[in-house]
């Protein structure tokens, strides 16, 4: 009797599994420190003092989180509020100035335009360390140290944003702008009703990057905010960790509470952020 020859549609090669194995292993290594911190935040202080250290919590507890929530020295809601105010204000003003001046540099001519644009580009190359000290001195003279304004007022423009939106505005057809002018629209109205809608996706992407950058900022807030009640989340987290260096079950829980919520939000928007990074090479 003849048997039908077996024809497999696709030959499965064992080599095809190698990338998966390597990637799974690399992912485990990459998330391990994070898992360690999250697991640690559910351990008791006694367990963390044990030698040798344990990996999984023997006695699962949420006591650390309760302690932090009730700690009057650590009003997390206040610091979330501070961080949100600064990040939201800066996203708003940076998007406004970047889109407006990006559009102006792309579509208008005025005296010394090239010089001004060159200057803006040049500031992109300056390391922040150069302006850090005079920036602090100016804010001190204006009595703005330890005010959230210190993080907002000097951050109204973003050289990179202006550059980016100039590139995007170049592709807006002049006919569209002229048509609006013939219809009697004012220049500001044209910016608001014709140009801004065209820049929508770029605004979303750059806004997300700006939010992330402000939310995570460390050096500048560290310099200008020295009083506790005005601190932002990254600053308060390191302060709390130093204060409670011997109770790392508490500091681990605090770190999780500061890092995790926003990281989840970012994770859902990461498609936009990745697009922004690959599009611009922003670092």
């Amino acid at each position, binding site marked *: 009797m003849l048997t039908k020859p077996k024809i497999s549609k696709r030959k499965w090669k064992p080599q095809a599994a190698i990338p998966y194995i390597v990637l799974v292993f690399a992912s485990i290594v990459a998330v391990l420190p994070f898992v360690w911190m999250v697991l640690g935040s559910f351990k008791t202080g006694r367990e963390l003092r044990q030698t040798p*250290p344990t990996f999984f919590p023997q006695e699962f507890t949420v006591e650390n989180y309760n302690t932090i929530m009730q700690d009057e020295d650590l009003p997390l809601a206040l610091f979330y509020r501070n961080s949100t105010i600064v990040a939201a204000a800066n996203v708003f003003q940076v998007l406004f100035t970047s889109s407006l001046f990006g559009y102006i540099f792309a579509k208008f001519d005025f005296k010394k335009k090239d010089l001004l644009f060159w200057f803006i580009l040049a500031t992109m190359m300056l390391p922040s360390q150069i302006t850090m000290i005079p920036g602090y*001195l100016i804010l001190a003279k204006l009595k703005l140290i330890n005010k959230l304004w210190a993080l907002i007022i000097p951050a109204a423009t973003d050289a990179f944003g202006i550059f980016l939106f100039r590139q995007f505005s170049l592709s807006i057809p002049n006919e569209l702008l002229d048509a609006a002018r013939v219809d009697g629209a004012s220049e500001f109205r044209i910016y608001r009703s014709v140009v801004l809608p065209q820049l929508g996706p770029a605004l979303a992407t750059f806004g997300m990057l700006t939010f992330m950058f402000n939310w995570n900022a*460390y050096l500048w807030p560290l310099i200008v905010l020295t009083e506790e009640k005005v601190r932002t989340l990254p600053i308060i987290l390191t302060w709390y960790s130093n204060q409670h260096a011997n109770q790392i079950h508490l500091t681990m829980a605090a770190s999780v509470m500061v890092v995790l919520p926003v990281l989840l939000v970012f994770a859902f928007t990461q498609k936009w952020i990745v697009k922004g990074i690959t599009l611009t090479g922003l670092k």
Partner: protein
Amino acid sequence: MQDVQKKGRRFFRQVSMKRDAGKRKFLGFTVTPLVLYMTFWTLFPVLWGFALAFFEYSARRSGNTLLGFGGDNPFVGLQHFKSMLNFSPEAPKWVRQFHISFKTTLLFAFIILPLNLAITLPLAALIESVHERVKGIFRTFFFLPVLAPSAGVAIMWGYVFHPQKGLLNAIITSIGGKYVATNWTADQSLMIMGIPVALIAVIVAYIWQDLGYNLVIFIAALQSIPDSVKDAAKIDGVNSWQMFIHIVLPLMKPTILLTSILTMISSFQVFDIIQIMTLGGPNDQTRVMSIDIYDNAFRFQRMGWASAVSIVLFLLVMTISLVQSRMLEADWEY
């Protein structure tokens, strides 16, 4: 007829004049504030920052009326830059710390770059090679640290390297069977191939957070390589390793160059992770220039000296940027 034409022309001229007036008004209302703002918050601080480097300056001393220059904050000319070249062991402590921080910054950046590329390039190729459906998941795993606050990342890695309660010691203990309590980030006698272990620890944390950037850029570059090129190579019997080395990598050369420069510039300015994990210690082993600038300016009130150091950092960044533009000017033909 002629009259109508004349009228029409005049009408258009009026409209366009009105329009130009509108444009001028618009520019006046927008560009003028921008120029004023940037003069005050960018140009002025930059000039002030450069000027500070030629003074002995502290915010605590009042000095003269004009920005506190002069008086108690005397002009010292090129003194700061001259003492940077004082390599004798009797040089003041801050001069020796500057030398250490300059070396450490370069060492840090030149370890980060090859390590970063050695991880991200193969990783990008691997992620590109797996099934479409799981690609996104893997990419997310490696990209998420980019989005995390570096303060959180530094604290988290502190738990890995913690001498009593750390993950690293726990792993070594479980493999070796004997409890170890190595203080990875604070024991200055620990060295691997002449590189302090504390420095390696901050490098690991930095790379962990930073590699997602280059990864997504490389994935995008890989995707932009046309299928026709790859198909042609496949027909010629090229295996996937040869394809990566001889076809993919050369095509990605411009991208790799650009990301290398960006990686280098940002690692010259590393601050957060080192400040939180080691404070520049132990014994200045992880002291990089931005830590040195911060310490001098805001802890020791040597703002003039700190400005001079920041100018050196600026020159370092400029040099690399110039090399970058030279390299990009060269022709890149596929």
